[in-house]
């Protein structure tokens, strides 16, 4: 998809004025955090699991080459094929090749953010293969020609009237006079239409929540069962997974599953957790005849050993965005690319370049909630700071900002000058205030247009410190 992250400020402004979106975001803020908190309260071992999950992911990343080779060997033993893709273009090419070989006209898809990352749908469509999203949320936004606004609740920005409108506009074979007011009516209609899609698809494409080196399993979690119908009905099952989805053993996957579902939807476990091990076996009455895994790098190997390696621990639970005040105010589309929220603010500059995505690591209040809820303890604010530093080093920050920072560092590294200016500044600001409040301030209207600034009272901090020090000595 075309990134619009460069327009983040304008995107955010529009999002704040979008009444339907603002109403939908109320559902998000009222839903996910409370459900997560409740689920965690029921599991006293949760913090221990987070520590273990962090260490386990670090161990895996330190031995990633070994575990990838083990995984590949097990998949091949089970009659599957593993394809390695350096970048998005190569991954798209591989998937299209498999579809062509299978003579595929339509493919069903389970929910997968990595196929959003490689813009697979657009590519398949341009090449005569019709992809059909089967996760209800993904299906709705596909009908509307949109992209997901959230990594696990892709249609969270929509209300039911918008869903009904999309169904009426696109399900033209249905009676236009049919009732379509309630979510159950819409679900029933989508179930019927997608059931036919499942039965007729030639290829099914899913992502993977985990790839297990010990067993060669790919693992998906869903609540709808669409990922399962996607992989057991067509003749060919293709799994697209990025490198960091590898975990060593089944036991390791269990630790991460306990963290994932609670952090994501607040469930004890998803309705369906499915372990797929190669192709249909002799005597099996169902299951795919071919099983392919596409392992996507797309810049991830280059994150190892550096300051962004921690980001490769991410298990895509969405807790960081569910708890982010910025995401909660503007939703996911404003971020302008595939991955929104704090995890997106760290990952997107890596994937599309800091020159394209520089606004994202700046769109943070650094309140730290994302890090405090991350199931694998990724220091997201620290990683956003690293991007800000890179952005500054590359001279991508605006001139006024750079001038301000330069002036600050000049003053702050000269204590005498700093004390003098601070004292003068405090006195000046006090005079500008009325009743202890500053209602308008030249050069700072961005602040005072929205709220009053309390006028400084009394002495500066350094003066108070000096006084206190004197007092102690006396």
């Amino acid at each position, binding site marked *: 998809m075309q990134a619009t992250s460069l327009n983040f400020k304008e995107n955010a402004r529009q999002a704040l004025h979008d009444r339907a979106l603002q109403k939908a975001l109320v559902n998000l803020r009222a839903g996910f955090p409370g459900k997560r908190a409740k689920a965690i309260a029921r599991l006293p071992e949760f913090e221990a699991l987070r520590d273990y999950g962090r260490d386990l992911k670090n161990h895996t990343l330190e031995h990633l080459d070994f575990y990838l080779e083990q995984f590949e060997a097990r998949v091949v033993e089970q009659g599957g094929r593993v394809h390695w893709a350096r970048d998005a273009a190569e991954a798209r090419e591989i998937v299209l090749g498999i579809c062509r070989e299978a003579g595929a006209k339509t493919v069903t898809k389970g929910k997968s953010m990595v196929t959003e990352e490689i813009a697979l749908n657009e590519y398949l469509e341009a090449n005569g293969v019709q992809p059909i999203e089967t996760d209800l949320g993904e299906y709705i936004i596909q009908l509307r020609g949109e992209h997901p606004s959230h990594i696990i609740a892709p249609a969270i920005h929509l209300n039911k009237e918008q869903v009904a409108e999309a169904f009426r506009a696109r399900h033209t074979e249905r009676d236009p006079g049919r009732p379509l007011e309630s979510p159950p009516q819409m679900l029933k209609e989508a179930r019927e239409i997608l059931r036919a899609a499942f039965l007729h698809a030639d290829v099914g494409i899913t992502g993977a929540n985990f790839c297990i080196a010990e067993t060669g399993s790919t693992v998906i979690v869903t609540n709808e*069962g669409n990922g399962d119908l996607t992989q057991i009905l067509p003749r060919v099952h293709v799994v697209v997974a990025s490198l960091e989805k590898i975990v060593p053993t089944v036991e390791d996957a269990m630790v991460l599953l306990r963290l994932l579902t609670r952090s994501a939807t607040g469930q004890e476990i998803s309705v369906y957790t499915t372990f797929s091990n190669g192709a249909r076996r002799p005597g099996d009455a169902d299951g795919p005849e071919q099983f392919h895994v596409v392992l996507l790098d797309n810049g991830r190997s280059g994150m190892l050993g550096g300051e962004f390696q921690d980001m490769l621990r991410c298990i895509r639970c969405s807790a960081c965005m569910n708890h982010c005040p910025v995401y909660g105010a503007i939703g996911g589309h404003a971020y302008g690319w595939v991955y929104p929220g704090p995890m997106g603010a760290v990952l997107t500059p890596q994937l599309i370049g800091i020159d394209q995505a520089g606004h994202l690591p700046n769109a943070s209040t650094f309140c730290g909630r994302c890090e405090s809820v991350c199931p694998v303890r990724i220091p997201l604010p620290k990683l956003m700071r690293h991007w800000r530093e890179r952005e500054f080093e590359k001279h991508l920050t605006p001139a006024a900002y750079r001038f301000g920072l330069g002036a600050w560092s000049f003053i702050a590294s000269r204590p005498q000058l700093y004390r003098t200016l601070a004292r003068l500044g405090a006195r000046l600001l006090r005079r500008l205030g009325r009743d202890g409040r500053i209602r308008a301030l030249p050069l700072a209207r961005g602040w005072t247009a929205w709220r009053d600034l309390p006028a400084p009272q009394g002495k500066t901090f350094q003066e108070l410190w000096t006084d206190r020090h004197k007092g102690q000595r006396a």
Partner: protein
Amino acid sequence: MSSRDFILDNIRRHLKRAELADSARAAVEARLRRPPRGPIPARAAALDHAGQVELFIAMAEEAAASVLRVAAPAAVPAAVAGLLQEAGLPLRLTLAAALAGLDWAGAGLETAVRRAENGDRVTLSPAFAGIAETGTLVLLSGPDSPTTLNFLPDVHVVVLAATDIVATSEDAWDKLRASGRALPRTVNFITGPSRSADIEQTLQMGAHGPVTLKIVLVGA
């Protein structure tokens, strides 16, 4: 250079090392052969087996599955017939070969032993294990238990022996490893019926999979 070699080389270059040396390789290989367990929740692991069975039932019901207990396998057909009558469904089901040996006709049920097809309203499969911690069923694919039975019908009935209930998912995998059977094409963990909250975060049952999940629990 193939993409495979390019990626593996790039991983090693960034990790600032060559392929794993012998001792390091032996250590990770050993970890794969004897997988260590992470922190195990005490919720189920601390209970005796009777307690685990009770917890399994409570958790499965919390996930909106229903649980019906019967004393012995011979009682399963009559129990299933009762469930279908109660739900106003025709006395007809598609079932896994693994359960074909029970006297279905004796309970007045018309059966087909095969994979599921679209339009099958009720299917029946055997569970390999039940996980007490979360009320989860473990189903294994194979010639005698096709996976389509688990996903295509409106009503999925699963037969589980109480003796096959274990505390945790780790225990279920150990049970599979100890059974001596090869890893099947598909291992399904199923916890309650299909659902979606994708429209306005409102939970609705019966998305793409079964609308109803009924567990027949056999034995004390």
